[in-house]
């Protein structure tokens, strides 16, 4: 599209700076709280409006439903319910486009609409008009874009106010469309649920050990509770210390995030289980001698007889005798079985 304005072309320096900041936020995953919750208030403020934001659609057994709603200036839960009801009843009576597959000319285009015109386009079959009455939203101007990836709608993004929009606001929203599109399609890719950086955050929280989402060169984008504790313990060196600890301490998995700088999932390697409690339990149950217990401690981590003999300062023959005694006492058919039985049961 040759007529797409860029943010650099926005004349007012204050607006230009705020638009550039918003665009930069869309390029990073740092926008906590998750799910682009920050988007609606900033968009509304930038475009000088009272209400607006973003929402997405999903198909549910052939009916159109609201997949997520991220708006300001509306009574959130109630508005979502009403919107959902209107769409699932009759999407084409509600809005003048197919919410799941709009016409090519309707995709990624900023349009200004007046409520009367929306009613006329939607043939005023009830949907939106009754919704507006319910939410005391009577005569308004709407500036919106259906952000699309291919033929499918990633989000309705728009703002509403009582006074008409000027060319300036239209230019501003048009300039933001590429960044919105990139980010919303990334959100869709991050999970099956659109607007779900939160889904990723929940999965990272579920990792039982310290985990961080890191952006090149060295920014921690997100950390789970254990990860935050780890970083707070070493606020100065932080990520450098983690990097210096090497691959045996932390795994660095490169993440596929097209259009963004390199990101990694950094996870602290779980230390091997401490064998002491299991050793104590086995020694008690099988009534092992202190020497047998020493030998067992080495056998169960995979040490060979020769190594054990050297470490304990006894002959290899003596180790063999201890191992035979252990197999007998623990009723194991083989050394493999002994090691497996030692570790595999509940601790």
């Amino acid at each position: 599209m040759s007529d797409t304005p860029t943010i650099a072309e926005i004349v007012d320096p204050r607006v230009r700076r705020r638009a550039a900041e918003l665009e930069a936020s869309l390029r990073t995953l740092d926008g906590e709280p998750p799910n682009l919750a920050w988007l609606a208030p900033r968009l509304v403020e930038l475009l000088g409006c009272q209400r607006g934001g973003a929402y997405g659609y999903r198909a549910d057994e052939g009916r159109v439903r609201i997949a997520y709603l991220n708006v300001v200036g509306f009574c959130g839960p109630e508005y979502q319910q009403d919107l959902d009801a209107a769409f699932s009843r009759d999407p084409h009576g509600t809005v003048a486009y197919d919410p799941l597959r709009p016409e090519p000319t309707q995709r990624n285009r900023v349009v200004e609409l007046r409520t009367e015109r929306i009613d006329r386009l939607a043939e005023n079959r009830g949907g939106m008009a009754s919704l507006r009455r319910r939410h005391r939203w009577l005569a308004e101007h709407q500036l919106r874009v259906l952000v699309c990836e291919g033929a499918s709608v990633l989000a309705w993004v728009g703002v509403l106010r009582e006074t008409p929009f000027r060319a300036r606001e239209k230019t501003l929203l048009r300039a933001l469309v590429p960044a919105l599109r990139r980010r919303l399609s990334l959100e869709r890719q991050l999970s099956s649920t659109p607007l779900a950086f939160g889904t990723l955050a929940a999965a990272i929280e579920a990792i039982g050990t310290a985990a961080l989402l890191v952006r090149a060169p060295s920014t921690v984008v997100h950390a789970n509770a254990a990860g935050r504790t780890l970083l707070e313990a070493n606020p100065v060196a932080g990520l450098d210390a983690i990097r210096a600890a090497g691959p045996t301490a932390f795994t660095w998995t490169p993440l596929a995030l097209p259009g963004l700088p390199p990101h990694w999932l950094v996870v602290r390697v779980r230390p091997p289980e401490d064998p002491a409690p299991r050793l104590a339990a086995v020694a008690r149950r099988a009534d092992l001698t202190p020497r047998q217990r020493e030998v067992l401690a080495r056998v169960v981590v995979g040490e060979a007889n020769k190594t054990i003999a050297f470490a304990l300062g006894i002959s290899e023959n003596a180790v063999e005798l201890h191992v035979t005694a252990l197999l007998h006492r623990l009723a194991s058919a083989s050394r493999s079985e002994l090691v497996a039985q030692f570790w595999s049961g509940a601790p």
Partner: protein
Amino acid sequence: VTASKPPLAPPGRAGRAPRSGAVDPFEASLEAIGSPAFLLHGAEVVRANQRGLALLEREPDALRRPDARRIPVPGVPDHAVVVLPEIPGDATTRAAAAARQWGLTPRHRDVLALLATGVSNGGIARALACSEKTVEAHVTVILDRSNAASRFELIARFWGGA
């Protein structure tokens, strides 16, 4: 119009997927959980990690277990990441996860699941109806990929003990 359902298993990443390649962030996080983990929408499984898939195959009702840990997805209603505790002594799901981590084939995985419980090569050959020579070859590959110095170290590491 029908909802397009994402596949349960991540496409094209089974078997010998390159270990250096970039991974889908959500998949990487689910796998890093270690024990069986799922993304649920209501009661429906949207995604699962390898151990989760292996567990569901064995135990279709596993998600109804009372010890499931639920982490709700902030801001997205009805979605939660659910983590189930490891089943002690469960070699099958561990073998599936290890196979993924070490880039093993399904056959290696089956050998590993038996080996890890202490079955001898002869016993594995009988269980999988193949020759002992074949089992030996599989074990060599598994030892090589897992970087274990011996069969015993491999068993200990398999269970998280080394």
